[in-house]
């Protein structure tokens, strides 16, 4: 978190009352959303209400033992993040304090309070290579140089968005720390690699464009049926145990974004630890470097202070926007936005605000849409194009999707991946319900799949959808009369649909090969099922009894395609076998 640098003189106040994370102060001269330091220990907080000479502050740390009469010190600047090289491969708490630095400073595995640390290492030097020359005119947002931040990512050093711009009069090259000036403009402005930006304010862009490229997730059910676009928004609601977090982790691991910002908002400590331990060891499928080299983690576990949980999604999206400005495709995963909404509710009820639906504040819907609207495919102010895709997990109480957070989220997002407890219970993973989920990007992304995978992608997918739909209808009848009472062609459809579910929709996140499935493989498995379908119906028309068709040896091998590394050969053989075995029957 950035220290205040503003020289604006502000007067200190005195604590009036303390109730959990909400503290009121008397005579504090501060603006709305300013950062303040509370009490003799200097706990970080943010101004959230001003009434007369009483200022209400939400405190980002535990307030036990804080008493009225202690001082409150204003900083005169809003909650901001430090931006610059050093954010990748980092793990932050909800207000961008690096957790590894905190551990060192506190000398304990437990989070003490009143310890602050800058979001990026101010001492570390980076190799700066200029991209402009003396005499060049630069404007706000322009890229003036690059820094090899990690083996995967070149960090672009940009003129701050609020700069006036001007002519470059001096430019450096070589190793510098983030606070040293690398570029000087004729206006006298000095540019460093370090920038600050208030988290609650969107970074400026030229315009939002219609996204046309998919964010490939390597998950068959998502890429195949419910794709999300680069710059798109998606919600994953589901009751506990339905696999939200595994799905989010899979996306963070395999999505073909340049940068991944993973926000663990009010979730389990052990899960964050899993991410911290796993990601450095995993390989990025596109670059071959460590996944951590493109990842920034924000971990605010459920037992960390509630106010910092409220701010962590903003910290995350601001970092995402900064990388977008460099022209990168960024994917932000927020797990879970319900915890964020609950943090708002908790603060709101401590403020004794009039509650809206289910105790949530009336501004819930506005805050959610504000957040998701920061996603998109943008033309940046420096002329580059970049995107921020936002994927938010939602944890509806009791798995009931009619609750306010799910409903307000669904009004905004264009992709809905509905997790289903029934599927999870029978260990069908990812347990995304194919009848309830939808993606409004499907049509605008089809051209990409046609050009880059197969021209008949949309048709084959439609066949799969129709088959699954038909299965759903037939299942209702089967529940009543049993499978054997159905006509033969319907029995065959059920069998094909079963393979679509087991071989195509199911995917084992814990299997080394199956965990990631490229679009080509997604297509081929789906197409293999269709090959079986077409050949099987031909055999049925020729008078072969359905039992014999479903009994061929080759068919169960469909279920093992997922785990094959050299799938092309395997599928070719399999398709041949299926066709020849069925031919033999008539």
């Amino acid at each position, binding site marked *: 978190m950035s220290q205040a640098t503003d020289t604006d003189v502000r007067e200190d106040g005195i604590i009036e*009352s*303390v109730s959990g994370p909400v503290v009121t102060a008397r005579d504090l001269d501060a603006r709305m959303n300013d950062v303040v330091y509370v009490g003799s220990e200097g706990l970080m907080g943010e101004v959230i209400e001003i009434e007369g000479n009483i200022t209400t502050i939400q405190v980002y740390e535990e307030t036990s*033992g804080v008493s*009225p009469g202690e001082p409150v010190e204003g900083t005169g600047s809003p909650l901001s993040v430090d931006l610059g090289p050093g954010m990748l491969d980092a793990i932050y708490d909800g207000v961008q304090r690096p*957790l590894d630095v905190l551990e060192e400073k506190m000398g304990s*595995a437990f*989070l003490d309070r009143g310890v602050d640390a800058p979001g990026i290492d101010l001492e570390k030097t980076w190799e700066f290579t200029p991209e402009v020359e003396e005499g060049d005119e630069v404007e706000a947002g322009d890229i003036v140089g690059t820094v090899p931040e990690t083996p995967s990512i070149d960090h672009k050093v940009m003129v701050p968005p609020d700069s006036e711009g001007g002519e470059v009069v001096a430019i450096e090259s070589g190793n510098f720390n983030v606070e040293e000036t690398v570029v000087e403009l004729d206006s006298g402005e000095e540019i460093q690699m370090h920038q600050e930006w208030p988290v609650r304010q969107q970074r400026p862009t030229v315009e939002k464009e219609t996204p046309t490229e998919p964010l490939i997730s390597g998950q068959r059910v998502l890429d195949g049926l419910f794709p999300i676009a680069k710059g798109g928004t998606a919600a994953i609601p589901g009751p506990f145990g339905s696999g939200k977090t595994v799905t989010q982790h899979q996306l963070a691991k395999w999505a073909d974004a340049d940068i991944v910002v993973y926000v663990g908002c009010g979730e389990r400590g052990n899960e964050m630890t899993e991410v911290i331990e796993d990601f450095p060891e995993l390989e990025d499928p596109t670059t071959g470097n460590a996944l951590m080299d493109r990842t920034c983690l924000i971990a605010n576990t459920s037992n960390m202070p509630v106010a910092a949980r409220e701010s962590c999604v903003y910290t995350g999206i601001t970092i995402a926007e900064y990388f977008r400005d460099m022209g990168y495709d960024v994917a932000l995963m927020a797990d879970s936005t319900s915890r964020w909404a*609950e943090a708002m509710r908790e603060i709101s009820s401590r403020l004794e605000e009039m509650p809206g639906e289910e105790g949530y504040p009336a501004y819930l819907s506005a805050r959610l849409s504000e957040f998701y609207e920061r996603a998109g495919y943008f033309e940046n102010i420096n002329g580059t194009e970049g995107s921020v895709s936002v994927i938010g997990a939602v944890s509806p109480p009791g798995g009931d999707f009619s609750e306010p957070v799910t409903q307000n989220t669904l009004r905004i997002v264009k992709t809905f991946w509905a997790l289903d407890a029934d599927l999870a219970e*029978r260990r069908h993973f990812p347990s995304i319900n194919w009848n309830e989920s939808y993606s409004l990007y499907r049509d605008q992304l089809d051209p990409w799949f046609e050009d880059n995978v197969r021209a008949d992608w949309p048709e084959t997918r439609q066949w799969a959808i129709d088959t699954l739909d038909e299965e759903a209808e037939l299942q209702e009848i089967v529940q009543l*009369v049993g499978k054997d009472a159905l006509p033969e062609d319907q029995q065959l459809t059920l069998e094909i649909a079963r393979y679509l579910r087991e071989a195509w929709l199911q995917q084992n996140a814990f299997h080394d090969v199956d965990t990631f499935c490229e679009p080509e493989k997604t297509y081929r498995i789906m197409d293999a099922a269709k090959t079986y379908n077409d050949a099987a119906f031909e055999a049925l028309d020729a008078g072969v009894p359905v039992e014999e068709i479903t009994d061929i040896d080759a068919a169960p091998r469909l279920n093992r395609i997922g785990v094959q590394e050299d799938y092309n050969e395997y599928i070719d053989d399999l398709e041949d076998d299926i066709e020849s075995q069925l031919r033999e029957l008539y």
Partner: protein
Amino acid sequence: MKEYQTITEISGPLVFVETDEPVGYDDIVEIELSDGETRRGQVLESASDYVAIQVFEGTEGIDRDASVRFLGETMKMPVTEDLLGRVMDGTGQPIDGGPEIVPDERRDIVGEAINPFSREYPEEFIQTGVSAIDGMNTLVRGQKLPIFSASGLPHNDLALQIARQATVPEEEEAGDDDEGSEFAVIFGAMGITAEEANEFMDDFERTGALERSVVFMNLADDPAVERTITPRLALTTAEYLAFEKDYHVLVILTDMTNYCEALREIGAAREEVPGRRGYPGYMYTDLAQLYERAGRIEGREGSVTQLPILTMPGDDDTHPIPDLTGYITEGQIYIDRDLNSQGIQPPINVLPSLSRLMDDGIGEGLTRADHADVKDQIFAAYAEGEDLRDLVNIVGREALSELDNKYLDFADRFEEEFVDQGTDTARSIDETLELGWDLLSMLPKDALNRIDEDLIEEHYREDETAEAVEA
């Protein structure tokens, strides 16, 4: 220390006092009644001229003349290794007539969050000896795995069975030698009946488990507000034993439902805006502050594993208590009323049960190479059998295919042989998995689509299928 006799309002468990000096939030308070009795409480809200205090032992008998002392510190728990074998009440006062506790340290009971960066990911398998848990929903060290139960179900028996049988396989190999980390049980009872308490205590004494246990007892007739600190005392003790004294600590908290009722009572007394079903809006955060105290820390030997028990009101798992718990804990074990009435012991329904940390805690070198596949296949087959049961009620067994009939038999045998093992049997993981193969071999080989082909070759019992067909 200043004494005030300025109580302005007494309401439910709360006392409001006018003050002229600042009092710290969360500080501990002593209230002396006119008859000399002292009660303890905690500051819930502190303003410059008044404070709100929640009184642990209840407000009965307090009048406006009672004097209030602010101790200037937050609630502390005196901790020492000597606590092992001791029985305390819900506020940490010994009730077993033993010697006075000489603490090594006094620790803040609220506890600080473990830095996620300092945690170590839990992946050490704990063998509970219960097949439905070890085989299907494996518990690992540092996990928090609640038991979702309901009134009238034998959750306590299961908790006791786990406490009695839990071992880590490597310990067994090392034999009886006492080196390395020891195992300790911390038992935090909140609002349980005296009878239930006796059941636990008798079992602890009978099995000799008491000497490696610390017991905190808040009974049903003890003040409700006291319940809000009992689990914190238990967890503070657990953290001390685990991270300072290298114990592997299993914390059993029962019954979390009573704890949440106490939270609601305080919330209502403070006239807070209630959340769902009247429970306070911060209940998620509050529960997380308890459950998240499970875990392992890098560089420390010990671990804190939590086994909270909660009874779901009306068997409803969408009720806020089980719901919020499920979102925080790493899975859950469901106790099932139907299985219980069929006499299955322990009546664990494995289908909705889940252990999130299982996948990393099993497999070669941890349990057995075939564990994950066997588990997946059993889940799939049992779910299939369960589905078919509904159908059988309508169309009868004859209308079903041969394979479907096998699934039905599988589901029956799974419950009767795999889940049902009684409260005194401890099965090793090998026994559990072999039993799994016995059952799976009822099904034809190509129905085992979740299992690696090599493993099927290695373990599949060729003769079982034949027997099943003949039968």
